[in-house]
Structure formats: C-alpha cells, structure tokens
C-alpha cells in the first residue's frame, strides 16, 4: 500500500462523518452552501465553520501530540486566556505588534514548559499536572486584565481575528498553515515516531535511548504554542481579552476533536490531519445547532446524541458488535501495554 492510499484510508471515516454532519445541516438549513463576498472577505456558513473552528483546530494540533505521548493537556483553555490577555495588554501598553505577538507566544511556550516540567521531570500525572494550570491559569489571565475585558483597537492585531488573506479569514489561514507545518516537521523528522514510541512504552523507549524527558517537554510546549495562537485569535476576534471566558471548556472540545479524529487516548499512533477534520466535525455540529433554530435548552442533548452517533459509527467494534452482540469475546493482540508510571 502506498503512503497516500494509507493516508486516505486513515482519514476516510473522519471525512465521511464530516460529510454526514454537513449533509444533516444542509437538510435543516438549505441555504448552508451559499458563499458570497462581503467586505472583501468570504461570507457563508461553511466559512464560519472553518473560521470559528480555528481555536479548537489549533488546540487539537497540540493536543494530538500530547495525547500521542499518553498525556492530556487540560490547561489549553486557560493558556488561551493567558496569551489573549498578554497580547491585549501588550498592544494597549504600546509595545507594537511584533513584540506583542512575541510576548504572547512566549507566554504560551512558558505555560507549556511548566506543564512539561511537571509531567516529565516531576512525573506528576498529566491530567493533574495540567489541572493545576487549568485552575490557576485563568487567575493569571485575570491578573493581567484585572478582571475586566481588556479591549484594544489596534488594527494590526485585530487582523489576526477578523482580517483576511486573499478573502480567506486569517484564522483559517493560521490553523491550516500551523497544521501543515507541524505535520511536516513531525513526519519529516523522526519526531513523530519517537513521540509514538514514548506514548506506547515510555520505559522501553527510554531504554532504547530516546530522550523522553526532552521530547515530553517539547510536546507540551508545542501544545502551549498552539494554545497561544488560539488565544491571540480569540482575543483579536472580539478585539479584547476576556480572561474569564476565552477558551472556557475548549480543552474538552479539543480532546473530543482528537478522539473523533480516531486517535487513541492511550497514546501511540496519531494523525494530525484526522484530528483537524475532527475539529471541523465538532464545529460543524456547533454551527449546525445554531443554524437549526432549536431552543437552546436542547443544545446539549443534541450535541450528546450526535457525539454518540459519531463515535458509534467510527468504533471499529460497531459492526462486529452488531453481528455477534452476544457471542464473540474479543480478539486482541497478545500484548498488553505497560503503563508508564
């Protein structure tokens, strides 16, 4: 099997799911596919999905890598808030765009470094290690904005939220470029394989000479960086840093995107592209709910139902289960994974 065929086979379930969700939306909202140009920018529901999905897509990039190492990063939402706050603060203090962006990205990297340090060096379980920053991070963000929504009018920063490049909204460009870049780096270098190796068996990888510690820190830093980008976009989008609400609960959406992308939460093999499609599936679902006009009380029930259906359809067990619901015990590889400490 060639690489391309294998790649397509890997992402086929996600593509099909995306098509199905979009089809469903088009059913309840026939005008879905209308795209026009407004203010020199593409305008239409499909564009909204791509555009609104940017934060989750960016988070999903970092999250995919973190999850591949058998970790999880609950702090990304809070990191978004911090970096959004830093960028708003920087620009209002008059540091200029370049310095502001640099500071915001550095803040994200720093947060990632902290998480990575807790996980790789202090060996705290990832979910708890990142829970700390999830709780404290929002406080830090509020410390920067002093609890208010820090608004700004700097057009150059706003460009990252609502500008456009060749009529394509900037956030869309950013997440696609970031996704391609990270995928390129990870797959062209040995990083991808090494990340998968430490995710599957940390101890064995370390024995084979893989520098797991540095790799783990790097992965969490990547996640922090992606969260920083998402935070900048979110702040630029509303021309202000909302420390309390920016990225709230987005960590769950990002994790969901990774899982809908068919990646195992137990680490190991990963596909960035599938995660990104997963993010779009989730955003399509959210946008679809908004377009459908159901009362908001039903939002969560609808979402739960759709997620369940998606997961059931994607579960490799689904059709075997239907055939042998009562009969078959599972065929499993002879190996069980060893649990890293």
């Amino acid at each position, binding site marked *: 099997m060639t690489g391309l065929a294998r790649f397509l086979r890997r992402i086929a379930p996600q593509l099909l799911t995306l098509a199905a969700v979009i089809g469903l939306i088009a059913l309840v909202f026939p005008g879905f596919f209308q795209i026009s140009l407004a203010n020199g920018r593409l305008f239409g529901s499909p564009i909204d999905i791509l555009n609104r999905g940017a934060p989750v897509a960016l988070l999903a990039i970092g999250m995919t890598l973190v999850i591949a190492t058998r970790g999880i990063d609950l702090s990304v939402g809070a990191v978004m808030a911090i970096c959004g706050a830093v960028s708003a603060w920087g620009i209002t203090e008059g540091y200029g765009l370049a310095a502001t962006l640099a500071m915001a990205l550095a803040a994200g990297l720093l947060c990632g470094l902290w998480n990575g340090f807790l996980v790789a060096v202090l*060996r705290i379980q990832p979910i708890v290690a990142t829970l700390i920053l999830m709780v404290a991070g929002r406080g830090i963000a509020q410390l920067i904005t002093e609890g208010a929504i820090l608004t700004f009018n700097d057009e150059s920063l706003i460009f990252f939220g609502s500008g456009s490049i060749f009529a394509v909204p900037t956030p869309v460009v950013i997440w696609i470029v970031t996704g391609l870049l990270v995928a390129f780096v990870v797959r062209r270098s040995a990083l991808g394989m090494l990340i998968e190796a430490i995710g599957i068996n940390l101890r064995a990888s370390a024995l084979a000479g893989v520098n797991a510690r540095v790799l783990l820190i790097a992965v969490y830093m990547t996640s922090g960086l992606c969260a920083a980008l998402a935070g900048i976009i979110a702040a630029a989008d509303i021309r202000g840093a909302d420390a309390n609400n920016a990225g709230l609960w987005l960590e769950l959406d990002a994790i969901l995107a990774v899982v809908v992308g068919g990646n195992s939460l137990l680490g190991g093999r990963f596909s960035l592209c599938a995660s990104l499609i997963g993010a779009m599936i989730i955003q399509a679902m959210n946008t679809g709910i908004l377009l459908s006009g159901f009362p908001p*009380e039903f939002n969560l029930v609808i979402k739960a139902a759709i997620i369940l259906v998606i997961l*059931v359809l994607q579960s490799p067990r689904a059709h075997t289960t239907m055939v042998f619901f009562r009969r078959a015990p599972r065929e499993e590889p002879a190996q069980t994974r060893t*649990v890293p400490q």
Partner: protein
Amino acid sequence: MNARLLPLTATVVIFIAAYAVCYSQYPNMLSTRVIGNLLTDNAFLGIAAVGMTFVILSGGIDLSIGSVIAFSGVFIAVLLRDTGLHPIPVFIALLAVTTLFGASMGAIIHFLEMPPFIVTLAGMFLARGMAYVLTIDSVPITHAFFDQLQGFYWLMPGKGRLTFIGGLMLVTFMAGIVLAHRTRFGANVYALGGGVQTARLMGVPVAQTTMAIYALSGFFAGLAGIVFAIYTSAGYSLATVGVELDAIAAVVIGGTLLTGGSGFVAGTLIGVLIMGLIQTYIVFDGSLSSWWTKIVIGLLLFAFILLQKGLVLVTNRERTTPHHAR
C-alpha cells in the same frame, strides 16, 4: 509498613500538617463548627468521589458526575413539584435512573470499546441537557420531609453540627472501603485497573465489572444529587458545574493513580477534606481577589501533590529499593 499504604499515609500526614498550619494562623479553624462544615459542605462531593474512586481505580474516568448531580436535583424538584409523591419513592426512582445511566455508559465503553473519557463526556452533555429539558428554572423543594432531613443533626460541643448528609458521606466512605477491599468485585476493579487484557486472561468478568463500576458511579452520583438537593433544598440545572474535576482532584490527591490499579477509597476522603480545607482557608483569609483565589488554589493543589510525591519518594529511598520496582 506496607509499601502500598505509603501514599495514603503521606496524604494523612499532609492533611494533619496543613490543618496545623491553618490553626496556627486562624485558631478559629480548629472548632467543631469548621469540622462540621467541612463534612456537611463536602458531603455531595465526597459521595460522588467514592464512585469516582472506583472508576479511576479501574483505569477509567467519569466526567458525567457533575451533570448527573445537577440532573438529580432537577429531577427530584420537578417530580416533587408536579406530582404528589413522597420523596422516598422519588429518591428510589432517581437512583434507578442514574444507576442505569451509569450502567449504559459502562456498556458502551465495554462493548463498543470507546474510551471512557469521551463516552462520559457525552454522558455529561446528556445529563445536563436532560436537566435543561426538564426545566431551566431553579426549582425550590418545599417538602416537610426535606426539612426533617435538614434539621436532623447532632449538635457537637462548640456548636458544630454533624448533619445527616455529613454522616451519610462518612457511611458511604465506609461502604466504599468495604466494597473496594473486602469483596471480589473490589478486587476485580483493581484488576481491571492493572490492565484490561491481563484481567481478562486472569478470568475477571470484564463486561460485568465495567458495567458495574460505571453503574456504581452513577448510583453514587445520584446519591450525591440527593444530598445536594437536601443541602440546597432546590433543583437547578446549572448547579455543580465542574464537580467532576474536583472529584478527580480529590481522588488523585488521596493517592490514587489515574492510570488505575492502585489507590485507596479512604485516601479520597482525605483528598476531599484537603480540598475543603483549602477553600476554608481562603475564605478565612478573605483578602484574595477573584484571580488570586484561583492562582492560590492552583498553587496549593500543586504544593499538596508535590509534598505527597516528595514524601513517598523520600520514604521509599530510605528503604532498600526493591528489584525492578517501578
């Protein structure tokens, strides 16, 4: 001392030390009132955390409990408001619903081989969504039986109250401890946490156990919902957002490994009390702004985890390292 008891001992030591520190700063904190409050105010969290402990011991996770608690409150309030039923049958119906809800999540996790994180995330959306569908208002509960339950407490010397729900939490923990350490089911839970594949080869009934674990968690979440309803005399669909994370934190602070297979139900009680202590301390201090509150909670969480790690490490090092210990 048994090496496996080490994290538990460390947690207890840390809790006592932390309480001593609090006491030295605010002597008022060592009153039966505060102790009573600690039990009463954390009763629902503690009960839910017992269920969460089992789930985590088995290597899973249950994100739905916060929503299930909210749903329970709404369910009880709406039923009491709209039907003339006595609370007890309503409680029974509720526990049946939440247990079944948990069991079906367990079934999906097992039979469709889906990760618990995601299945229970969907469960979290569903439970809160159902609460919304029942009603979006906050519905007060006015039933004499509730007043009785609320008024049912033992006044400790020093005006502290050991309330019914506080006591219920302690009883739940006792039951949880027995279940975990003195039954075959408990052993099977630990076995699953050690590795599903291995457990299966060793003859653990994986399907039943998985379903039972999540059913148990659903049951305890329902019970926590009842306690929360008694605590607030109301049902409110926006209540207890994020309680699952508090419960996870309590379980982990209590010395249970999130990867499963190792930990103690009793540790979770200490974990819950530590979390309660942090909050009480912050309120007693009363000078922290909203944001510093969050930062300090995070830092204290960090400090506890670090202390625990350190304590376990140091004690481990003092004994001769066993071969292949990891």
